[in-house]
């Protein structure tokens, strides 16, 4: 059996006296699409950000490809972060750079590849997200859906082994959600390992391999979409589903 890509062990995270993540132990295998759902404020985003150490866990371990991030030095952590692309709710594109420059920056500065090569790769990625005609636009002129697709292309430019999505469609107008989700679906079809925090139940049902239901600082359920949506086990999950499905 192959090693899991991400292994989380007894992960806990406190903000001051407020304990957001209490004790989480899970793993993500290569090629899996995990969708993390749960009520607001249940720690989903914090959990995702602990995976690439944007948040430092209070205790517990996060391993990537068998290397425990919590014990590594900054340099190694930076190197491993390269392999974990992240897409944010607020896009976080660099507003002072064009779309093309946004995508090229990290490959050139981190991997040290040449401008020409980075440009070529950036155009390929933009084609993949259907935005090559916007290569020279600046982020401020893009719609939310376009900006998020650029952000996905930017993360892909580092050739990550895993993609982390932190509520990628929550800040979008409803008519733009579809274009972002279809790019994500396409990625999943290509075999990308993904951990997605989202409220899009349709996406969860059709794309996820596993659903992790999170509430009160714990992952309460870990099951397939079919199981989870048809037969939720915990009261928390039943309550949650009854509210969102109406």
């Amino acid at each position, binding site marked *: 059996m192959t090693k899991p890509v991400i292994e989380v062990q007894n992960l806990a995270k406190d903000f001051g006296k407020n304990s957001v993540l209490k004790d989480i132990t899970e793993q993500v295998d290569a090629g899996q699409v995990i969708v993390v759902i749960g009520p607001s404020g249940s720690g989903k985003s914090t959990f995702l*950000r602990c995976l*690439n150490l*944007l948040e430092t866990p209070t205790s517990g371990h996060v391993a990537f490809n068998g290397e425990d991030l919590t014990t590594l030095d*900054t*340099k190694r952590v*930076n*190197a491993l*972060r*390269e*392999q*974990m*692309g*992240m897409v*944010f709710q*607020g896009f*976080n*594109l*660099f*507003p*002072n750079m064009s779309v093309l420059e946004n995508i090229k*920056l*990290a490959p050139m*500065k*981190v991997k040290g590849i040449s401008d020409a090569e980075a440009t070529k790769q950036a155009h390929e990625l933009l084609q993949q997200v259907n935005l090559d005609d916007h290569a020279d636009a*600046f*982020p*401020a002129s893009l719609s939310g859906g376009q900006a998020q697709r650029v*952000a996905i292309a*930017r*993360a892909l430019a*580092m050739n990550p082994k895993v993609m*982390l999505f932190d509520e990628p469609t929550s800040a979008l107008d409803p008519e733009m959600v579809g274009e972002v989700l279809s790019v994500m679906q396409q990625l999943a079809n290509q075999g990308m390992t993904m951990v997605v925090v989202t409220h899009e139940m349709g996406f969860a049902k059709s794309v996820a391999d596993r659903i992790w239901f999170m509430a009160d600082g714990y992952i309460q359920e870990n099951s397939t979409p079919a199981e989870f949506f048809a037969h939720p086990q915990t009261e928390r999950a039943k309550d949650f589903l009854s509210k969102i499905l109406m």
Partner: protein
Amino acid sequence: MKKKVIIFITLILAITLGWATRPTTAHAADDSLVRVQKKGTLVMGTSPDYPPYEFQATVHGKSKIVGMDVAVGEKIAKGLGVKLKVKSMSFDSLLVALQTGKVDMVISGMNPTPARKKNVDFTHLYYQGGYSIVVNKSEKGLYHDKDSFKGKTIGAQTGSTMYNESKKQTTDTKVKGMTSVSDLILALQSHKIAGVAMEKPSAQAYVANNKQLAMIPSHFDLSASDTSAAVAFKKGSTALVAAANKSVDQIRKQDLVNQDYLPAAGKYLKTNTVNTSMWHYWKAFLTGIEYTLIITVCSVFFGFILGVILSLARMLHGGVVKTLIRWLATAYVEFIRGTPMMVQVMFVYFGLGLIVNLPALTSGIIAISLNSGAYVAEYIRGGINSVDDGQTEAARSLGMTSGATMRFVILPQALKNIWPSLGNEFITLIKDSSIVSIIGVSELIFQSNIVRSDTYRGVAPIAVIMVLYFIMTFTASRILNHFERSMQHD
């Protein structure tokens, strides 16, 4: 005001370096003479706004310091077998410059008063004059001598003997001190003051060159040392003083001042005042602009670098070392922002001068850069804080180091946000660089003062530099706006 600053500086020097007040007579070996002879030059400090003692004249198209004191200096240098170099600065700064080794001697119509004798050594007297009071010709009938100014105000050069004596020997008369004699004459002509007390040769020069002025005798009761001029050397340079005295004695014996020096100075005065149009002095103003821009551009450059370093240092968090660095950077910023730039300029020039002998221009640039860096640091810190945290997270999630994130993502955006503030700082520096005129850097203010004492015209040079400053700041703000627009992407 300026005098207080000097006292303050001297105090700082005395406290921090234990030097300024230490009697240098305690030096075991007096190497003053040998040192000057080894150097091959004798640096003379003077305040060239006191014709005919010393003033700026245009000689063969070049501005030059001339006057009877310069002739005295030449004579002394020749006697020592070295070359004379004349350094100009404000009268207030002369003795500090002497004590801190910026100049070897001071010849500036200076009276060897007992107070001054405590701090420096004087040669024998090379000239004995008297005091006169210059008044407006239209009012000449009103005044006879110092006692005619009851209820009025008379002016004198700050830090000079005339100033002290005018205070002591008049009753019901206000005494107004200004740094330069040309300012005093201007105040006189605009009726801010009723008379100006100055030495007789100076008074004669002003009256001869300005038909609206007249002079009256002062009738001050003065001891010999108060009405005379001697050359000042650093305390303890006995050998140098003795060597200089040979020349001074010759000057007295042959009456060189009255026979040669004063007539020669008079000639410069005449050629000087032939053409007093501002166009005639375009070169002087150009030099001023040049130095003002050099100071500003260099200070902005170094100030910016220092500002970036300080702002990053102020954001350090972590271990003891980082905390200490942050604490030091914060202390530096607070201290610089809490002290006047003028004091900083004087401290760098005179204070640091004790350790390394920096030229005035370098000192000025250093002081202003150090000052500007503190302000720029605060702008940059604000700019960095104004960049959304999401930007850092996005960059870090792409594997960029914290350094690369700062350099490629955060700083460019911070810079854009604070560009208007940085632009303001640049424009402020163009104007504030004028402060270095006090240490004798020939920037625009300094040059305008020279033109004023050259031409005996008080207002025109001020109007000229006002326009010049405006042209510079306005051009700068247009250029900065252009860059600001080209950075706008949203």
